[in-house]
């Protein structure tokens, strides 16, 4: 395999991944949500493709933020970190062994999560405290009190999600590691080429379920969208993004769906994304199935507050740990 060849494969796969991923939000909305809700629904291109393009052509405004520049770079960092994850799991890059380990994937996913904390604390939207209204009057019940923006609230929640929310995902990531006794993606893939996919073992199935829940939490999809519930924080950390930065957010979300699905196929099926192999169809299929399942779940569940969130996360973490234990059997 020559270097040129590898580069073409990597870039080609990346482009195909991007192309597929922009359809995912539309498929979720039109085919699942709309049909369950017994309506026609938007065209599938609207949500994932046309909306970002439209935002790209909108006027770039300076966001209400103490550090507008930094604030606006955050979505780009987030997109880049996801692209990095995608690159790591591609076989062409396995030569850089140290970089292509599970630890790197976990690290980059953490970057993605931490970005929400920053987004939230840097955003000062008009939908929150900036709304002009004279409600602090003499004789008010609580007079001298620190007032917080809705986004700060969501940034706090993002922090909590880092602390406990994404637990299931990381536990699930370590099921293949323990099974193949290798923290390198290459090792995990090789193990599965010899012993068959991890998914087809008991531990693998449990791990996959836990992975799926982690996937939903990381994507902030209902019922785990505590970060951006309409009932209180409206859109939370994302509120101030406009124009092309909002477009990046849209693309990032679709791409994250795809990347997480390909992480899954790599780790649980032993099929890393590779454009010039028939297996790419399996990757794409998984990338389609995950959002569909997620959409069905989210159409039928109310949003969780911590009261439901903690037990759910704890429960699935336990299942994840069980899965890891089962790997030894």
């Amino acid at each position, binding site marked *: 395999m020559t270097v040129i060849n590898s580069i073409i494969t990597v870039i080609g796969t990346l482009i195909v991944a991007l192309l597929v991923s922009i359809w995912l939000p539309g498929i979720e909305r039109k*085919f*699942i949500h709309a*049909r*369950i809700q*017994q*309506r*026609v629904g938007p065209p599938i291109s609207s949500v994932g493709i046309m909306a970002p393009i439209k935002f790209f052509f909108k006027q770039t405004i300076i966001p209400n933020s103490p550090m507008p520049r930094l604030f606006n770079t955050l979505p780009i960092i987030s997109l880049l970190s996801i692209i990095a994850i995608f690159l790591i799991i591609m076989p062409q890059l396995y030569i850089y062994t140290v970089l292509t380990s599970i630890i790197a994937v976990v690290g980059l996913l953490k970057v993605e999560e931490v970005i929400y904390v920053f987004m939230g604390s840097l955003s000062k939207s008009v939908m929150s405290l900036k709304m002009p209204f004279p409600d602090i009057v003499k004789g008010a019940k609580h007079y001298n009190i620190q007032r917080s923006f809705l986004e700060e609230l969501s940034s706090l929640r993002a922090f909590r999600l880092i602390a406990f929310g994404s637990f299931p995902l990381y536990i699930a990531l370590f099921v293949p590691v323990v099974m193949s006794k290798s923290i390198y993606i290459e090792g995990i893939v090789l193990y599965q080429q010899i012993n068959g996919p991890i998914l087809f073992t008991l531990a693998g199935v449990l791990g996959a379920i836990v992975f799926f829940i982690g996937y939903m939490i990381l994507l902030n999809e209902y019922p785990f969208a505590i970060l951006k519930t309409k009932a209180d924080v409206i859109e939370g950390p994302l509120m101030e993004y406009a124009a092309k930065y909002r477009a990046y957010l849209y693309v990032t979300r679709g791409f994250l769906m795809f990347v997480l699905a390909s992480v899954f196929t790599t780790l649980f099926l032993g099929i890393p994304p590779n454009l010039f192999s028939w297996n790419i169809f399996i990757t794409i299929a998984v990338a389609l199935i995950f959002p569909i399942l997620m959409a*069905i779940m989210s159409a*039928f569940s109310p949003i969780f507050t911590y009261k439901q969130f903690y037990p759910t996360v704890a429960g699935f973490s336990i299942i994840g740990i069980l899965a890891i234990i089962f790997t030894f059997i």
Partner: protein
Amino acid sequence: MKDLIRIFLEGIITNTKRILFKSDRVTDMELRNKILEGKIVPTEKVAEVSCIGCGGCANVCPTNAIEMVELPEPIKLMEGLVKDKIPVLDSIKCVNCYYCHDFCPLYALFGEAGTIHPNDVGIIELEISKLLDEPVKISEDKLAFISQYLSDSTILKKRKE
């Protein structure tokens, strides 16, 4: 628990059908076509046949939303009463105060459904000639009320000028 399983299973079946075959879709497709073709029309506001063309509604409207439009051919309703204008209501100006409806003589004098209404006037079947032949019983203060309305509106208009 049994309930839960039943609902779960039923849910899987109906929703699979919904997802795969678009079953149970309740969106109004006729309306969809109309909207896409731009064929949504406002409801009728004036029952043109039954209106006697007295112009009271136009006079009483606080926002001047009603304009009396000349009929191409005047219609003779009865001896001494010719209908040569009918009201046209401009929805953009109307504030839905019901003054026009409540002033329309068909309502105010005869107690029938008024021939103008800011929303949907509906189907009004009135034998105008018969109705007009009837002697009108109306109390003094109601007459005063109606006339006060008329003058009130004129005062308003003058003030604007």
